[in-house]
Each structure stands twice: as C-alpha cells, then as structure tokens.
C-alpha cells in the first residue's frame, strides 16, 4: 500500500477552481519532487493535504496510509505524521519557539499515548536534534519566526521537521532563498529523515536541491494538473528547457 495516494483531487479557493484533478502516488521510502510554474497550484496542493480552512475539496480523494486523510482535522493529520514545511512560515509574536515546538511535540506524543516531555527533557531532545543537523537552537529562544530572515525561517522549518520526525513531509519551497550552506542544512535535514517507512514530497523550482536530495520521481504541475512525471533526469531537462514546451503540449 502506498503511503500517499491522491486520486483525481479537485479543490477550489474562494470559489475558484485551482486543483483540477491531481493524481499522485508516493510509496514509503520514496522522495518525489514537484515542480511547475508559479501559480500552478503546488502550494494549494500542500495546503489541501495539511487541511487548511478555505481550501475546499470538490472532488477526488486522498488516502494516507490507506485512511481517508481529508476526514481528519489539521492537528490530527500532523499527529498522524504529516508535516508541511510552509512556503511562507508564519510569525507568531509573543510565542517563543521553544514553547511552540514543545506544544507541537507533546501534542504528538500525547496522541500516541506517550509521556509528554517536561521543559528540561524537551530542551535536551531539541538540542541534540539541532546539533545533529548543524543547526543552532538559538532561534527557538525568539518568538516564532518574528524578525527572522527568509533563510532563518526555512532553517526553522527544517528544525521543526527534524524534531517532529514526520512520516510524510511536504516541503514547499524550503530551498528558496537559501545560501549554499543553508541549502546543505535543509538537504541534510531531509536526507536524515529518509527511511524505508517514510516519504517526502519536495516542491521546488530549482535543480540544485535535487543534487543533494536525489528524488525517485519528478512531477511537473501546470494549471492544477500534473502534466508530466519522470525520473530525476526530468528535473535536469526542465532546468535546461524551461516549462514552455510542456505547457504547449498540455494545452
């Protein structure tokens, strides 16, 4: 059974149809890259998977580990192991990163019947995680994402992902706006999570992340549909030729 199976998924936002029949199957152990021009619906797909309000599914279904994902509340999806690294991570003034992440981790632990971490245990756990990724946990002392640079926000998403150890991670342009070192950090974070029982969907515009995180499959999304799928060579081809020829063919 596939870890994620999206069948003919259609969704609209504010009455506008954005996803027009997405089909995508991700097996456990795989990394899939999703590419495609601006506005093609990649983030919309990620929000629909995460359960954001206002993204109305009008057709199709999504099976996660064989269960109907769309029936679950966003927090239940997260506790079941779905993680969305946001394209635009949200600032939360007044909530320290540690508090935020401890709530998140403990919610998940509680959901699975495990003991919640107290503040000390949590700090230890996070510090070890951060260290293994060459990340500093300093940013957790600050309010969540407030005043963070673009790259810092993406590092923060990566650290959260490492701490929450998702089974299915959807990374929405986590590589955008990163310098070379930060790109390595994100790539290491993704690779560290790679395991036979886990999977990743990496939304990206650039081949360079895929040099580090080699995908099993690459998909091209355009106008709310997946118009082409292939292996890692597809990403290289797109880098060279752009999307135009694909869009013409799809139209």
């Amino acid at each position, binding site marked *: 059974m596939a870890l994620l199976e999206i069948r003919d998924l259609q969704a609209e936002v504010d009455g506008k149809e954005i996803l027009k029949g997405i089909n995508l199957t991700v097996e456990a152990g795989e990394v899939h890259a999703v590419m495609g021009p601006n506005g093609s619906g990649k983030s919309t797909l990620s929000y629909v998977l995460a*359960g954001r309000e206002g993204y109305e599914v009008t057709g199709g279904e999504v099976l996660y580990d064989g269960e109907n994902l769309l029936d679950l509340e966003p*927090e239940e999806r997260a*506790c079941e192991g779905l993680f969305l690294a946001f394209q635009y*991570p949200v600032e*939360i003034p007044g909530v320290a990163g540690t508090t*935020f992440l401890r*709530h*998140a981790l403990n919610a998940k632990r509680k959901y699975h019947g495990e003991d919640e971490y107290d503040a000390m245990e949590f700090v230890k756990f996070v510090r070890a995680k951060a260290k293994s990724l060459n990340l500093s946990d300093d940013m957790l002392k600050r309010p969540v994402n407030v005043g963070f640079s673009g790259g810092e926000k993406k590092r923060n998403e990566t650290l959260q992902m490492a701490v929450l150890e998702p089974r299915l991670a959807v990374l929405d342009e986590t590589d955008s706006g990163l310098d070379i070192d930060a790109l390595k950090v994100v790539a290491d974070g993704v690779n560290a999570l790679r395991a036979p029982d886990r999977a990743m969907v990496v939304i990206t515009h650039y081949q360079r992340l895929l040099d580090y995180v080699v995908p099993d499959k690459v998909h091209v999304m355009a106008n709310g549909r997946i118009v082409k799928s292939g292996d890692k060579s597809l990403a290289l081809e797109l880098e060279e030729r752009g999307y135009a020829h694909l869009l013409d063919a799809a139209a």
Partner: protein
Amino acid sequence: MSAATTDTLQILLAAGPGPGVGPLHDLRDAGRAALAKTGLPGRKTEIWKYTRLKALDGVAWTGPDARPEIDGDWIDAQAGFRDAWRIVLVNGRFDAGLSRLTDLPSAARIAPLPEAAGAHGAVAAALGQLANAERFPMVALNAACLEDGVAIGVEERALLEKPIHVVSITAPGAQPVAAHPRLLIRIGAGAQATLLESHLHLGDGAPAFTNAVLEIIVGEGARLGHYRIHDGPENALFVATTAVSVAGGAQYDAFALNIGAGLARNESMYKLDGERAEIAVNGAYLGVGGAHIDNTTFIDHARPNCQSQETFNGVLSDHARGVFQGKILVRPDAQNTDGHQMHKALLLSGKAEVDAKPELEIYADDVRCGHGATIGALDADQLFYLRARGVDEQAARALLIEAFLLDTVERIQDLAVREAFAEALTGRLRALQSSLAHGEAA
C-alpha cells in the same frame, strides 16, 4: 441627573460617615458640595459615554462596618507577594492587624490618613490636589464618604528594597457594601520604590462597589514602579481614579491588569511635570461573560523633553465589553516630546465589543507622537500554523490569546512583578480555556 441616580447618590452618601468632624471633614464637605453640583456621572458626561454606572441604582448600599472575617492566609493566597510590606484595607479602612509592616525602614512612613493628615500639614495640603473633586464626580464621591485611607511617604533618596503592597479588599457581608479606599503616596526626590496594588473581593454574593482614589506624587529624579491587579465577581463594580504627577528626571512605570468579571473602570491622569520625566503606562485586560472593562487615561505633557509610552492589550469573549479612551495632551511648552500610545483588542466572539477612542491634542511643534489601535479576531494563519504542527484548536487559541496578553506584561520593568502578573494571567486563562475555545478566527 435622573431620579434614579439622585436616589443612588443619596443612598451612597447616607452609607458614608456623614459631615461630622475630624481632620478629613474639609475634604468631605468639599466632596459633598461638588456632588451637589455635578451629581454622579451620567449620560451627558462625555468621558463616561461608554461606561454606565446603572448597576449602582436600586441597591441598598451600606457602609464599611459589616464585613466577614478575613484571615491572613486567604490574603496570602489571593494577593501573593509575601515578601513585601503589606497594607491591608478592608472596605476602605486600614486594617492594622492584617497589615504587615514590621521592619519597615524609617525612610518609609505609612499611616492611616486621618492621623497623617492631622499630624503633617503636607499631607493635608496634598490631599485632593491631584485628584480634583470639582472635575471628577467619582473623586468627589470618594471624598464625600472619606473616613479613612492610608498615606505613604518615602523620604528623599531612600531606596526601598521591598515593594509596598496595598491589598484593598471589598468585602460585603450579608449587605451590599460601598467602599471608598483612598491613598496618598509621596515619593521623595531621588527615592526608588515599588508600589503594588491588589484589588480583591470577598463575599457571598452581595453586590460590592469600590470607588478608589489614588494620588501619587513622584519627586524629582525618583523612580516608582506601580502595578495594579484587579479581580472580582460579576456583581462587583470597581472604579479607580488615579492621579499621578511626575517631576523632572523621574521615571514612573505602571501596569494595570484587569481580570474581573464585573464592571471595572480605571481612570488615570498622568502629569509629566518636569523636564526629562518618563512614564510607561501599560495594561492588559481579559473580559469574559458580561464583564465591562474601561481604561481611560489622560497623559499631560506639561514640560519639554519628556517621554510617555502606553500600550494596552485586551481580550474580550462572550458579550464582554472593553473601553479604551486614551488622550495625550502636549502643551505649548512641551517641546521635544515623545508620546506613543497603542491599544489592541482581540474579540473572541461576535457579541464582544470594544470602544476605542485615542486622542492627540498637540500644541507644541517639536514632537514625536503617535497612536494606533487594532481590533480583530485571532489570526487565522497563526492558528493554522499551530494546528498544522499538531496543536489542537483549543490549545492553539489559548496559546495565541496568552501570547497576545503577555506581550504587554513583558513591559513591566520589575522582573518579579512581571513574573507574578504573567502567572496570574496564565492561571486565569487556563481556568477559562474551554470557555475561550469557541469563536471564530479572522
């Protein structure tokens, strides 16, 4: 004045000590005279436009005599700050037995108001100067009913190592009680002190009306931290009028936390009365059920080179109502003034309401002044971000509400007070968590 409020005034005055004699009788007479002219605040009183004292009507108010037993443990538990000099007022009367003033240094003088006014001309002369009975009807009512209270004096250059904690308890016995606590605080030049105020209620359900007046004189170069917390049940009416003058080079840091379920009005006047005076007056409020919480402030920049900063955040749920009226006056003389004001309200229900009225009146030309106000619901993006990380909706809402309120608590300069206020607030939020969980995000 309507017939109902006329009757109410008579009932309240009859519950007071009457004209009588004693060192405070001048003040009482002046209060009565002022009230005879103005009456209680009503519909036509502009500054009381959003807050009505209708709940005062039709209640058989009595004076401070009848009160339940109060023990020190209850106060410890309710008011905290065990390591402070404690002044306890019950229904406006100083209670020496419950107060804890042993080892008070001689540089600090704390005495019942009648005694202090009788013994020290300066006390008698200062009373009623900042809080003017002719201009403020609630001050007039306090004066007209005045029989006790406390005078606090801190000598020049004294550094008090512990806070002075005023615990004012309004405690109706079987009868509704009207209390008029009165405080006069004088901080000498160069002195440093912290003044805490806890306004508490104790009773079995009879209505309680508290009408407090504080006059605070902060001397040149002095520093005063002044932090108030108010809590009370649904049928409690709380009015506090605070008038502060801050002399040159002095710093005054204030915070007002309101978590009561009834009606609360904090009306505060701050006069920056010497060059380079600095004030920070902040606050937070949490209104649930039918609470009505009014913060009305007037910041008077009377001299050049002064700074004022004011931030209030409020959360209102159910059909609670908030009022924020903030006026900043910059007089012609007050060049190089910095004055900033912000009020933010979070409405958790469609029936909650807030009236915000910021006002700048500027007569000097070299000023940096600004005010801002926002009113809104919880941020939907923030809620989703938390939920997408596994935090359930109720906990996510609670976390955001707490962060919103703690944002102003963070401004309290005194670390111990900051922590204690944060704890009072988070404790209350936790107790209310399920009732704050409903409502819609923006």
